């Protein structure tokens, strides 16, 4: 075989064997790796959630000791945020962004490989802390000092793993910005980009801006604990409350990082199944940008009860409530897109609709929490838990699942099992509400979060929530089964897959060639 033929082989398909996945620089391979990683972490984080809910099934302590319970709540959050939602979004971006904007690959393919392969090692370190002396981190994912400084041997490992996840996210985000800015097909102006591309573009900037701030905050914790600095130590002139300010300066944009790409996914799916163009495209873009801007000036609404001048509380209350305006624009645009559309209800559409309805419920409870005087009662209760789980589970996760169903036929070339998909949707939707809705009630009645035991009057609602948790958890096995079945075979998908689908990704074959758009299409 001569050199030219080897060269040609290299360009036509993936390398054989397992090393393909280690050395790959192909955006589709890396997207697949991210998505599988995220799915595995979803089950690990879910298992932790089930341990939490099992302990809370009845009042009293029965299954795990309180210290382990706190490790579970902390690790569940860290894994679901950094190990599930963010990698899933990056995976979808890797798979879809190049073929949605007509690019041959991501702009920085080698860095792309690196940013994925950091993740398993980062989470390996983080999960290994559970077996260390003193146990894993147990001070909550927010890592407030001085409590977090009491973590045992796990502490430096936790900090370094957070650094690694941060490096991975920043590199992933830079790659996405570079791809979108430099590799769009000729004629694809910014205002012609699909909305998933737009929301990721803005999300990537948020990531680049705030992940380093988190890295700084945890580095300060590290030097406070081991090198005698006093950033958060009052005895040396520091202030633990300052950590909360720095953390939430990262933390609030972070929660939008966890939702904006889902907004984009839903904005792709609803028009397809309504067989209409997205209503108010440019207002969607501006609304996303406004949400991103506002996310930088609302952080202290997480800290109303820690002490702030009245002016500060009013400022953060009003700016927070202002976020409801662009978010409302989005929700009304989705509804208007459906208005008089020829709608069908395949699984991706069902998940997208579930997203719109239940994300809005979470949005409203967020608006309640935004009001300072009311927040004084709700702070650190299960009402907060109910709120952020509504925006993250039937919000972010439903968006991701909708996206997976939407593009799965494109990725594999096979249709998934529609009946099983609908069963997955309905079991998920019923159980997620059984799981999280009662938390509103126990929260309003004053049940505090992050505590393994509770007063007996909360028993009934907690028992119901635990039933919902197991139902929801086991429903997700359906997703795994569906994906594996779809990869192995099934009815062949057409190139367009969905009757109403628009966009460059549908002009490629299903599955798309390993190297696509080597010649960029021209957009008119």
């Amino acid at each position, binding site marked *: 075989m001569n050199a030219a033929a080897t060269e040609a082989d290299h360009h036509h398909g993936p390398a054989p064997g397992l090393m393909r996945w280690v050395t790959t620089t192909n955006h589709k391979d890396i997207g697949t790796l991210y998505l599988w990683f995220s799915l595995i972490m979803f089950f690990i984080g879910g298992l932790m959630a089930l341990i939490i809910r099992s302990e809370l099934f009845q009042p009293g302590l029965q299954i795990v000791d309180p210290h382990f319970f706190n490790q579970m709540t902390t690790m569940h959050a860290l894994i679901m945020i950094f190990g599930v939602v963010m990698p899933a979004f990056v995976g979808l971006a890797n798979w879809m962004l190049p073929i949605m904007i007509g690019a041959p690959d991501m*702009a*920085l393919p080698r860095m792309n490989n690196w940013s994925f392969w950091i993740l398993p090692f980062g989470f390996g370190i983080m999960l290994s802390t559970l077996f260390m002396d003193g146990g894993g981190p147990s001070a909550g994912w927010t890592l407030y000092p001085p409590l977090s400084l009491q973590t045992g041997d796990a502490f430096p490992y936790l900090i370094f793993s957070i650094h690694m996840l941060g490096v991975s996210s*920043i590199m992933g985000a*830079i790659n996405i*910005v*570079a791809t979108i*800015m*430099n590799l*769009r097909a*000729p004629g694809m102006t*910014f205002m012609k980009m699909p909305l998933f591309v737009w929301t990721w573009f803005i999300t990537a900037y948020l990531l*680049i*801006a*705030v*992940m*380093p*701030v*988190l*890295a*700084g*905050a945890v580095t*300060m914790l590290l030097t406070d604990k081991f090198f*005698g600095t*006093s*950033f958060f*130590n*009052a*005895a*040396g*002139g520091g*202030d633990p*409350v*300052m950590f909360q*300010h*720095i953390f939430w*300066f990262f933390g609030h944009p972070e929660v939008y990082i966890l939702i904006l790409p889902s907004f984009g996914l839903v904005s792709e799916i609803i028009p397809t199944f309504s067989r209409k163009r997205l209503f108010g495209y440019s207002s969607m873009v501006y609304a996303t940008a406004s949400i991103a801007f506002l996310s930088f000036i609302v952080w202290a609404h997480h800290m109303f009860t820690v*002490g*702030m*001048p009245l002016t500060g509380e009013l400022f953060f209350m009003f700016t927070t409530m202002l976020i409801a305006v662009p978010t409302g624009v989005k929700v009304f645009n989705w509804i208007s897109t459906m208005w008089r559309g020829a709608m069908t209800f395949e699984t991706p559409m069902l998940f997208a609709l579930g997203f719109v309805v239940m994300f809005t419920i979470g949005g409203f409870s967020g608006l309640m929490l935004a009001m300072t005087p009311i927040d004084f009662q709700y702070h650190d209760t299960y009402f907060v838990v109910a709120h952020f789980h509504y925006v993250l589970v039937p919000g972010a996760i439903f968006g991701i699942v909708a996206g997976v169903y939407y593009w799965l036929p494109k990725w594999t070339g096979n249709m998934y099992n529609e009946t099983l998909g609908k069963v997955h949707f309905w079991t998920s939707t019923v159980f997620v509400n059984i799981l999280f809705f009662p938390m509103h009630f126990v929260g309003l009645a004053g049940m505090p979060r992050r505590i393994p035991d509770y007063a007996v009057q909360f028993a009934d609602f907690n028992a119901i929530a635990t039933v919902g948790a197991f139902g929801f958890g086991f429903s997700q096995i359906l997703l795994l089964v569906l994906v594996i079945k779809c990869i192995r075979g099934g009815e062949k998908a057409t190139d367009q897959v969905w009757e109403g689908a628009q966009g460059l990704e549908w002009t490629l074959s299903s599955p798309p060639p390993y190297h696509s758009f080597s010649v960029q299409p021209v957009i008119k």
Partner: protein
Amino acid sequence: MSGRIKVPYLFVIPVLMFGFGYLMVPLYDLLCDITGLNGKTGSISIAEASQLDVDQDRLVKVEFLGTVNDEAPWEFGPEVGSMMVHPGKQYQTSFVATNTVNETVVGQAIPSVAPGKAATYFNKTECFCFNQQTFEPLESREMPLVFVIDPGLPESIDTVSLSYTFFDANGLVSK
């Protein structure tokens, strides 16, 4: 195509933002100094303090509190529980601290004033909280505090509480 970006520029943003995270530390202190947030008290030189007009008609109650942080080896408290003071006039009082262990220890008192609005009007010319305090084994000592309340203290405030928390400062660099 227009709008192309040079990738190395993108790496500048995270570097700058990492720096910004650290910049928030002095910014936070500055904001606390300006607003008196967090009960950070002011300090004032003796010369400045003697220039203030004494408001003989007004009496403000100043309460003193002493707390020991965590399990630090101290007994710590004010000499008197409260005083009635005229704004603009200098007063002296003291706190007493006792080292309860048989070794040399270093402590640091951190002040806080409530209500927060009063913090910027509460000025100290001399305070044991300005420095770390080293105690010999089992030593007990009176530590003086000289303060003056600025006559500009809002009329609505008639009680000011000054609270000190005594921290174990062994191994910490003096601030």
